[in-house]
């Protein structure tokens, strides 16, 4: 009798906490197509000079030429808010230890991304 009580308790706890134990980087949401046809243009054709563009340009991403399409895709693969699986491409360590319920941009605002810049090459 005692054993089955413990087993029942264990199962309850397991079911409630299992999603945390197997931490998943969420599958990307359904992709949205770019709001307007891009025709022959690139991102700069329309967005150069915008607030986001200027923020990006002065950021580390801007300096090392991580341009719009790297994170947002292009017309057919456009994502307005890239999921963390995109950030994972360069920030695998950080996305692997993401606090539950948060995404990269919760703390690192687009497009300056300037919170907790770390210097990490002396490994």
């Amino acid at each position, binding site marked *: 009798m*005692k054993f089955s009580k*413990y087993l029942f*308790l*264990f199962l309850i*706890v397991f079911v*409630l*906490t299992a999603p*945390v*134990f*197997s*931490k*998943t*980087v*969420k*599958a*990307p949401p359904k992709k949205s197509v770019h709001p307007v046809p*891009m025709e*022959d243009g*690139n*991102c700069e054709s329309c967005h150069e000079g915008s607030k986001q563009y200027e923020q990006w340009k002065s950021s*580390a991403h801007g*300096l*090392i*030429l*991580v*341009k719009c*399409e*790297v994170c947002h*895709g*292009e*017309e*057919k*693969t456009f994502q307005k808010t890239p999921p963390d*699986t995109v950030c*994972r*491409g*360069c*920030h*695998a*360590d950080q996305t*692997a*230890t*993401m*606090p*539950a*319920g*948060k995404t990269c941009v919760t703390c690192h605002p687009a497009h300056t991304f300037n919170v907790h810049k770390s*210097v*990490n*090459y*002396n*490994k």
Partner: protein
Amino acid sequence: MISRRDFIKLSAAVATAAAAGINLSSKAEAKDADVDRWVKGTCRFCGTGCGVYLGVKNDKVVAIKGNPEAKTNFGFLCVKGFLAYKVMYHPDRLKYPMIRQSDGKFKRVSWDEALNYVTEKFKYFHQKYGKDSVAYYGSGQAMTEETYTFNKLWKAGFRSNMVEGNPRLCMASAVAGYITTYGSDEPIGSYSDIEHAKCLFIVGSNTSEAHPIIFRRIMRRKMSNPDVKVIVCEPRKTNTSKIADLWLPVDPGTDLAVFHCMAREIIKNGWHDKRFIDEHTRITDGEKVYEFNHYVQFLEQFTPEAVEKITRCPAENIKKAAEWFAKHGPTMSLWCMGLNQRTRGVWANNLVHNLHLITGQIGYPGAEPFSLTGQPNACGGVRETGALCHLLPGTKPVADPKWRAHCEKEWGVPEGTIDPKPGFHTVKMFESLGAENDTTKPIKAMLVCTTNPAQSLPNAHKYIKNMKDAFLVVLDIFPTRTTQLADVILPAAFIYEKGGVYGCSERRSQHTDKAVNPPGEAKPDIWIAAQIAKRMGLEKLIPWNMDDPQKANALAWADYTRVTKDTDHTFAGVSYERIKKEKAGVQWPCPSPDHPGTVRRYVRGSDPMFDHQGFLEKFGKKIPSDKKIYFYMDAKNEGKANIFLRPYKPAAENPDQEYPFFLTTGRVIEHWHTSTMTMRIPEISRAQPYSFVEIHPEDAKKYGITNGDMVEVASRRGKVTLPAVVTQKSLPGILFIPWYDQHVDRMVNFVCNDAVDPGSFEPEYKVAAVKIRKVSGPVKLKDKYIISDVNEKFV
């Protein structure tokens, strides 16, 4: 048995953690919903050597991420590496062997039929026209094991040194620069010198677009340490110079004068290290040795004012650069094609080494003359396995009888097998290639592997007919300008479909695991090489002809590391098992399994060759026990490096009345080489759909050119027509065209000069004299140009 009390405590702890959003699983266990497994590898593109993981789901690569433990990139990727895997599934992938028929069209055949045809032709040509009538032209993008195999097959099997590779077109001057200065190829230090340097001299390199992830480290170094001085020396004010404290603009081909002037300033102001010069160097012109005062006298002509007249580089900038180089060290120089792709590329390399040697800025953290290698495996695959016409494994010359004898013994071939005479360098090879009945063309057949010479050779028009007339076998993953000239197309597996080793700029070799199978009947290059060997009676020489490329690679690697085990390039301590496991690869020399690899050469305590008995005995080296720094590969066995007295010589072709502009060529971050891969990635082709000509506003005004106008750029050799980008990025009189575009109207290598450096035989892509005219206003271009149909003619 856990007690009831403890069980409740544990459950409560877990539930509490969950509620607080704390993840109790480790990084390594984190699962990604979009990926079944991650496979370790390296990036397909540049010589940085970024570590990656390929995400595989349902036997398909669906994602990529940087490897945070890789010591090259620390997990970061540029746009090309980030999107590389998309290339693998493009519908244009070559899947089946094809032979061109008499009607000019390709017909799909079996591998047996293709390989039998190729080898029968090779045997025929060998018999009728001699062992040197069949050439191999390989690539700094093939795996080390593959290139080693082809090189062994040709040099020990066919006894022919007609083996070349595209690193001749990009790194040969750097190779010769290192060998003439220090006696041995490749850098002394490592990328980690970036994080110790206090002065960074970036010369002839647009690092932010050609080596973006190395630029990232430079950028971070500067941002974290604003007192670090960054000097950029080149004709254009590129994105790289955004972090520069000083730009030294120079007319293309004139920078030799700037380097000499900097040396003059350093010595005149007493900023040189005379003790280091006396102990560790000699002054030479390559023949005679001179006193230091002779060098000082030689430099007198290079006054800042005189040099400003030759180069257009402001005298004050040169003086400032000299001061920072000498006094704001440790100083690291980084350079690339701007120095190498020149008729005086070897001299340009020598003169940058000179600056380090006269100031003693060498052999300690941050003090490093570092040549950036362009391709991912020019170092590991071509230079180190000796797959050039004059070399053998270990980067040693075929002309060396002792080393020939050593290789013959290791390879189990009779003494005298290896030809002591070098074959033809690349330009000469393609000049000598042609039709069977053309007695002026001694090379009748060529196997081209993982490269696109029909677009990448300078003065390309000259070589197209030769390739078309010869028996051309092309191994590639997509139709290219070169497959348009081929007689046989062999479909190749992509890096992540076969695995293998790449060795990057900092002497670091890293392993890629096979992640997925190749499409259709595409095969790894190593299998193709081994099958050719088998069908030509050379199975004993190349026994690794199994279907599994990972087994074949392991055998080839074991063979290669055994042959080179006592050289200063040794990987004797790196078994295939080890290199597969190492998260960050290994830097040579690595003489034993317990050795971690070498961060810095020529320094006792860091470089294992100081105590390597096999090396010291085999090459008759004696390193004095009191020497901390010793250039043990010095050809004169004095442990010294050479400070070279190189005369000033400009480029082979300079602007004149008829052709009044300098043209220089280069890259953009999005595209790799001839864009056969990158133009097939939608995000990239939208960002850079066609190439263009950058022109200074003053020049644009003179010619009535505004942004987007179509401009014809013509040299004595050929012309291209492209849209203008009017920009202040370079000096008036200098034009820039990126070389990636495959469209025949915009293939800039029709314009470029194939004059070569007499020492390295590397062509002068970086300097040509051109004229321009406005053709029209903006037009709708045939952009994002790729060749999809193998039967499309070369037009």
